[in-house]
């Protein structure tokens, strides 16, 4: 099955990748449309980061397909990754460089043609007072902001962020939320993983729940008792898997 609809930014079809210890991601189906934010939530080890790595070509699936903007990533030329911005596990921020130097170098790697991109994202993520400071001297939260800035500065159509609010202070969370809303307003499709259910509830259009490497269901954002609904879904899935 292939999705030629350009409005589908990310499509995963029956994606499976199993590691030697038995863990992994199993038969994951996922679509992220243009103009929507999809959140992946799950307990530690649920497979969120592994799924994101599969979507970005950091891992090859044992079976299944991944498409970005309708193109299968296994045969996609490198140039087509230009539309993607991502942060997985660690921000792309080199300690020996200043914030501005980092962003300028990443702009080169992302083949960005926007001459003002660095200045704009520095302002949007409130990095102005740190712009000429070495990343080595920044707090974890500000390093995370630099990583997010390098993922978003080139106006990507596809955004994949793994635990983006980790280490961010409340001001950083709000700045990120605003930046992501600007992304979707431009037509980007955004996939984020998070442990912060309240934050996810405010941010996402759809919430997917992962457990044991599988996408086990969906929760409506804005639900009053999201935490309870999440744990109930996970408990039911654990029970069903224990039975089989």
């Amino acid at each position, binding site marked *: 099955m292939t999705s030629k609809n350009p409005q589908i930014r990310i499509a995963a079809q029956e994606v499976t990748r199993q*590691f030697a210890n038995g863990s992994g991601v199993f038969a994951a189906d996922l679509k992220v449309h243009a103009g929507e934010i999809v959140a992946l939530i799950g307990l530690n080890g649920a497979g969120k980061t592994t799924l994101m*790595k599969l979507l*970005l*070509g*950091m*891992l*090859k699936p044992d079976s299944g397909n991944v498409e970005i903007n309708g193109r299968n990533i296994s045969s996609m030329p*490198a*140039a*087509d*990754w*230009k539309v*993607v911005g*991502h*942060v*997985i*596990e*660690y*921000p*792309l*921020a*080199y*300690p*020996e*460089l200043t914030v501005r*130097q980092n962003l300028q*170098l*990443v702009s*080169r*790697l*992302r*083949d960005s043609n926007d001459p003002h991109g660095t200045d704009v994202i520095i302002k949007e993520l409130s990095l102005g007072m740190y712009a000429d400071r070495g990343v080595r001297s920044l707090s974890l939260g500000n390093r995370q902001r630099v*990583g997010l800035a*390098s993922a978003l500065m080139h106006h990507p159509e596809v955004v*994949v962020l793994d635990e983006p609010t980790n280490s961010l202070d409340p001001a950083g969370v709000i700045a990120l939320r605003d930046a992501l809303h600007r992304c979707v307003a431009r037509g980007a499709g955004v996939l984020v993983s998070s442990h912060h259910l309240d934050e996810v509830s405010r941010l996402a259009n759809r919430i997917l729940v992962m457990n044991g490497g599988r996408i086990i269901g969906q929760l409506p954002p804005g639900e009053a008792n999201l935490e309870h609904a999440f744990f109930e879904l996970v408990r039911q899935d654990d029970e069903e898997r224990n039975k089989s």
Partner: protein
Amino acid sequence: MRQAFIVEFSKLVRSRVGKIGATVLIAGVSLVCVAMYLGAHSGDPQVVAKLGSIDPTTWFGFFNMAIQVTGTGGLLGFGVVLAWQFAREFSDGTITGLFALPVSRMQIAFAKLAAFSLWATLVSILLVATLTLVAFGLQLSGDIGTGVFREFLLCLMSILVALPVALVATLGRSILAGVGAVIGLVVVAQIAVIMGAGGWYTLAAPALWAISEGEKASPLQLSLLFPVAGVFIVLTGWVWRTLQLDR
């Protein structure tokens, strides 16, 4: 590729490792040579005995000593910097940011090797220039001879000799693995020389050639360095191209 090269060269020259590596190599080799010169000049019998037939008060002896130090020290210095350059992406976690880019990972690996080669060439030029200035300052006796030329060529060939370290650092995903490879290269070279296979052990041939003024390593043996380095360049590019973050 051009963009990746600019990025990798900027990272290397602005890094502490790049700066310290360059300083240690240039100052280290020069200071050892000056120390040996002063020892020999003062007539210290212990230093004179250690130097054997080398007389560091002459241009020939001074640069032969520099060549001996560079043969091991240059490879160690270049190798450690190269190991860091590749392995740091894994230890710093920045490797995830090098996926899903319009620049392929193979291009990034080649850009890293090109940036390292340029950096090491600049360090080599500065090292030879420093040694030459020091030699003039010490008012060494005799003709300048081929020592400066052999020292410079040894430095350049040491860049090629160090290239396998990039592959090992990538496969091991740690700086320690890369540093281990550097030490391994040095140790195996010593054993190969002792066993009499030095010239045919391609990675030891440049030092042997420079020290023996070309007697113990033929042009054919030296020329094998290029295909061997080429194989390691291709292998490193291939490993980066097929890289998966599965551990």
